[in-house]
């Protein structure tokens, strides 16, 4: 075996890398959490690390619908944004503590995804993308015009999070390290749930529908219901990410609801590798680090991102993690 591997040159590395990738794939939640636990020391600064956590979670939720269920949603900004406003408005306007605001944000996004999902999952393929895009614009305009509650164009301000005492420990979210690990704990729990969903029979049905909808229907699975449920689940993860975003920034910019945000999360998922567990997190990491570097040099970030989009689609449709696992399993 060794002789053959060495004779083939590059194969040697692949043989060594494959078991490692196998181990990481088997204990995916643990591997991700270990990496994210040491990540603050690798990132340029803590606020960026928190952003990567949040957008990684958002991209993971988006990946559920796009990568696993095979439906391209262009409206996830609405679910992320409603998670943020649903959490931020009670905190800023009614003085609710953050640990109540957080589930409220998730519930708001969940209710929205029930409604949006009901409309959108009646349609297929490209219609689905159009309908989700249009409905997310509805959310955008409603929030934009409801100035008294949402702050309208200026965004929602004053989502302040005072320190709390839990089990005798004094927790101040203003401290970046505390904030990072608190959010990491929540993200890790979400990741675990996500991993369980993928491993469940429901996850298998979802992928079956992606691969061949008619066959799944012929096997007796309720296709529309599965698609709707997948959309709602995806919306809950996105909403959680949005709620965390509101707490992280202490404000909610109206741009979180813009369809450009939907494109950003799509870009992250593609960059990392759609339909893979680590891909979206890796994509969020690369995207935000790149943005951090590029925006120092030039204001034309969209030119860079657009070019990246085009090159990815043309040459690396599998994304970084997807290409890596493909190369290892070849």
């Amino acid at each position, binding site marked *: 075996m060794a002789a053959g591997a060495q004779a083939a040159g590059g194969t040697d590395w692949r043989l060594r890398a494959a078991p490692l990738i196998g181990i990481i794939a088997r204990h995916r939640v643990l591997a991700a959490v270990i990496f994210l636990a040491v990540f603050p020391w690798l990132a340029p600064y803590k606020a960026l690390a928190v952003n990567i956590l949040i957008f990684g979670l958002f991209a993971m939720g988006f990946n559920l619908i796009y990568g696993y269920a095979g439906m391209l949603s262009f409206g996830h900004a609405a679910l992320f944004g409603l998670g943020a406003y649903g959490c931020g408005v009670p905190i800023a306007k009614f003085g609710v503590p953050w640990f109540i605001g957080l589930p409220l944000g998730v519930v708001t996004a969940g209710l929205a995804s029930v409604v949006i999902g009901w409309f959108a999952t009646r349609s297929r393929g490209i219609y689905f993308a159009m309908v989700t895009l249009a*409905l997310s614009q509805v959310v955008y305009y409603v929030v934009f015009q409801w100035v008294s509650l949402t702050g309208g164009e200026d965004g929602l301000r004053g989502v302040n999070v005072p320190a709390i005492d839990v089990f005798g420990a004094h927790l101040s979210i203003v401290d970046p390290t505390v904030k990072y690990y608190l959010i990491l704990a929540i993200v890790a729990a979400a990741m675990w749930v996500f991993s369980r969903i993928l491993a469940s029979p429901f996850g298998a049905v979802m992928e079956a529908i992606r691969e061949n909808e008619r066959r799944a229907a012929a096997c007796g699975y309720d296709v529309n219901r599965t698609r709707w449920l997948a959309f709602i689940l995806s919306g809950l993860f996105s909403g959680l990410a949005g709620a965390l975003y509101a707490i992280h920034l202490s404000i909610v910019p109206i741009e979180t609801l813009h*369809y450009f945000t939907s494109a950003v999360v799509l870009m992250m998922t593609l960059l990392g590798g759609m339909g893979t567990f680590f891909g979206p997190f890796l994509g969020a990491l690369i995207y935000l680090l790149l943005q951090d570097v590029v925006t120092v040099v030039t204001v034309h970030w*969209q030119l860079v*991102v*657009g070019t990246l989009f085009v090159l990815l689609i*043309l040459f690396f449709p599998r994304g970084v993690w997807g290409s890596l696992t493909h190369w290892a399993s070849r």
Partner: protein
Amino acid sequence: MTLDLFLLQLFTGLALGSIYVLLALGLSLIFGLLNIVNFAHGQFFMLGAYVGAFALGLLGNFWLALLAVPLFVGALGMLAERFLVRPLYGRGIDYPLLLTYGLGLILLDSVRILAGTEGIPFPAPDVLSGATDLGLFFFPTYRLFLIVVTALVLLALWFFLEKTPYGLIIRAGALDQEIVQVLGVDVARVWLIVFGAGVALAGLAGVLAAPIRGVFPEMGIPILVDAFVVTVIGGMGSLLGAVVAGLLVGVTVSFTSFYFPQTATLSIFILMALVLIFRPRGLFGRAGALG
């Protein structure tokens, strides 16, 4: 509401709808034949307005500028099809959509770099400014011109598709590409032309809208969503649907902004939701054929 006021709102809606019709026609033409949703459509619309403004400055003639825009923007569209979109045929419906989205971002930032982030003025020519007496009411001449131009474009497009050999090939291609290919038609060239024509329509819509809406880099961003809503209401890939839904949406916006200005931006989405409840494929929707 008196009759003259009603007619005024109706005509205002038709003028607005004309822009939507041109945009949606381009989208539907491209979708119906190439099965591609062109997310760069809004940016080609914006590019049309900019090219028009520069051509106006260069040539000093509105009519020449109006002619130059579809040619230039169409040529750009053909380049995009040849070098970016073509490698993606047969690779699913998502990839071209995402690629054109990226292309749109490139166009948007390129215009910002070349022409600045501030808007530029685009005055309507003297002949078309002012108002025209339509018997019962006075109507802005430029908006009347919009309706007339759109009607002429529709007529030309109808003639091209129904009465010329090229139109026959295009209609056949929409029904069954393989058979058309087997019959010895160079399908790749047909797609090139169709993509160029669809994008040219977006550019034309942009330059026509410029005197009303102004010319600025972000002008294509919100209207892209409006154009999508129009195509979803009409049925994606349906040309008749694009026309009917475009006018319907224009008139809806016009009347709601008169009666309930708060909900004007929302009205078209409500219209879309209503249509989708009863007809999930839109008013005239069929799978991937020009109707």
